[in-house]
């Protein structure tokens, strides 16, 4: 059996599964791994039906399901927490949120940070007219920062680490999540594929959970010599010595947390469904989607995680 799985360049233990071909070994499926640069490309690929499983941020997932793409969220890869932050340049004269007025802030559009930026501005009482939001991919943000072309950026590692050196963190995703709009990166699956390969899905999630567990239990001693760190560095291309520090910023929920009302559980009241819904409402305001779905819990499916927890 064949399966196509999409992934992105962020640092997480999941990369070890790619590097070590754990899924192939465990399930006997032939896996075709595809790399994407941002969540927006992932949803386009899912729309074409050429990707069965992929990782994406909550914001692109919300956009996808609101456009009627038949996918469902089955796993929370990471709670973003402090791994994404709005950093402002030293010397840009920004000390408080209101100083953002008229400043140039870079974010990759559609991504979780884009969503959080808009949310933060709203919370600060600013509109997106007040701030010059510009769409930049992580690599170009690094370059533009270097030259001093932008005043701030809401971004993740490895660029985040670089710009923190001469900038200051204004706010992180953890804070914004606690204000009621959590973001996360999750695994989504083509609905039809999931249904037809339920056993396989369970085994895959089990692998993901085990890797997270492996990391969590070695967190204290986790360093560049750890095989997971090596895998991450190899796949994502970031420096092996930075990996531990970056992983520490994320939270990787275990089975119990995944299935609780915080994330996949509780239907309409579950954290993930609520997050998708509120994100979609946000997108609708910006004309990025035409209509809201009546119920976002249909796009969240804890079944496979439940099955995996019993393996």
């Amino acid at each position: 059996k064949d399966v196509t799985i999409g992934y992105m360049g962020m640092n997480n233990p999941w990369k070890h599964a790619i590097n070590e071909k754990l899924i192939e070994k465990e399930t006997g499926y032939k896996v075709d791994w595809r790399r994407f640069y941002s969540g927006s490309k992932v949803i386009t690929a899912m729309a074409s039906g050429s990707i069965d499983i992929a990782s994406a941020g909550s914001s692109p997932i919300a956009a996808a399901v609101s456009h009627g793409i038949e996918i469902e969220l089955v796993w929370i890869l990471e709670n973003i927490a402090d791994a994404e932050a709005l950093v402002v340049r030293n010397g840009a004269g920004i000390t408080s949120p209101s100083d953002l007025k008229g400043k140039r802030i870079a974010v990759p559009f559609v991504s979780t940070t884009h969503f959080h930026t808009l949310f933060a501005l709203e919370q600060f009482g600013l509109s997106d007219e007040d701030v010059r939001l510009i769409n930049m991919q992580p690599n170009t943000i690094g370059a533009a920062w270097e030259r001093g072309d932008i005043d701030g950026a809401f971004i993740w590692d490895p660029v985040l680490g670089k710009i923190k050196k001469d900038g200051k963190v204004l706010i992180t995703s953890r804070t914004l999540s606690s204000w009621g709009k959590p973001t996360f990166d999750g695994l989504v699956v083509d609905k039809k594929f999931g249904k037809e390969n339920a056993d396989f899905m369970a085994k895959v999630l089990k692998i993901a959970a085990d890797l997270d567990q492996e990391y969590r239990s070695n967190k204290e001693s986790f360093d560049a010599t750890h095989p997971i760190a090596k895998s991450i560095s190899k796949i994502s291309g970031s420096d092996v010595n930075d990996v531990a520090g970056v992983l520490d910023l994320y939270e990787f929920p275990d089975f119990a947390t995944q299935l609780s009302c915080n994330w996949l559980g509780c239907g309409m009241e579950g954290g993930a469904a609520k997050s998708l819904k509120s994100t979609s409402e946000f997108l609708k305001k910006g004309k990025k989607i035409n209509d809201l779905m009546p119920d976002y819990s249909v796009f969240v499916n804890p079944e496979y995680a439940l099955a995996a927890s019993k393996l």
Partner: protein
Amino acid sequence: MTNITKPFATSAAELGISKIKEINSKPVPEQKMVDTKEERATAAAAVSFLDKIELKIKKLTAPSAVPSGEYFGTPGVGDSRLISVCSTIFFIAIWAIATEGGFIKPIFLPSPFDVVERLIDITVDGFAGATLLEHLNASLVRIFGAFILACLIGIPLGITIGCNRVFRGIFDPLIEFYRPLPPLAYLPLIIIWLGIDESSKVTLIFLAMLAPIVLSARAGVTSVRIEQIQVAYSMGASPWQVVTQVIARGAMPDIMTGMRIAIGFGWTTLVAAEMVAAEQGIGFMVLNASEFLVTDVVIAGILVIGIIAYCFDLLMRYLEAKLIPWKGYN
């Protein structure tokens, strides 16, 4: 205008030349000939639009013959505008049927009506922080700025490279090396060097346009007839004059083709350029919409780009017909 026949026949006969006989071409009365083509042309100017179309259809179905005033075999002569209009309508109709009939999901391809609706919406209300006209304005300034720059630099450069061994030696590897480089690959470098303001955007588009212009100016040089160059020299032309007044003129057909290719190339680079921290621009708008899968805005933007570029191309063709009517007769 009737045939003049001078009375040489007799004198020739007197000279005893065997079988010499002068034929009086019988003066055929001047008939009112029905020159259909001409009549059509005159008529067409006066009649209404519908009549015009009828005439055109007649023309299309008429048996192929050389119209008076044209050479047989001239490739592709004739007016194809009506056919273009028909084929365009046909393609749009197919699009409408496929989408409205529900054969294709809107996310794959929205219906033309949705697109038009969205077009009106973004013209009035805007999308991604600016109205359609503001986006367009930002992009047109970039594209035509870069185009003018590319012509001003590329045409002389290409001609110089074609004409001069030393210049060719110096610039050839440089241009041939940079030419195939993907703008997306050196985008980060451009940002590092030039920042994220207009200059980096215009530079990117300029670089994309420069190569085809240089290349075709250079190819144009080699297609100038050697006799034309020689004759200029032997009338005392300096090399400079030969270059400017013979070679540059003779290379015009190629240069015009290059310019048309370049402007198309410029449009295609626009989105890459506007990936870089743009706040306005039609490319930025399309990119933004495509990232959110707002397909109708994507298609609307693409339509706008396509239509504007097509109009510009028509202008270029008109200029070609005006400036180089001698193409093919050289």
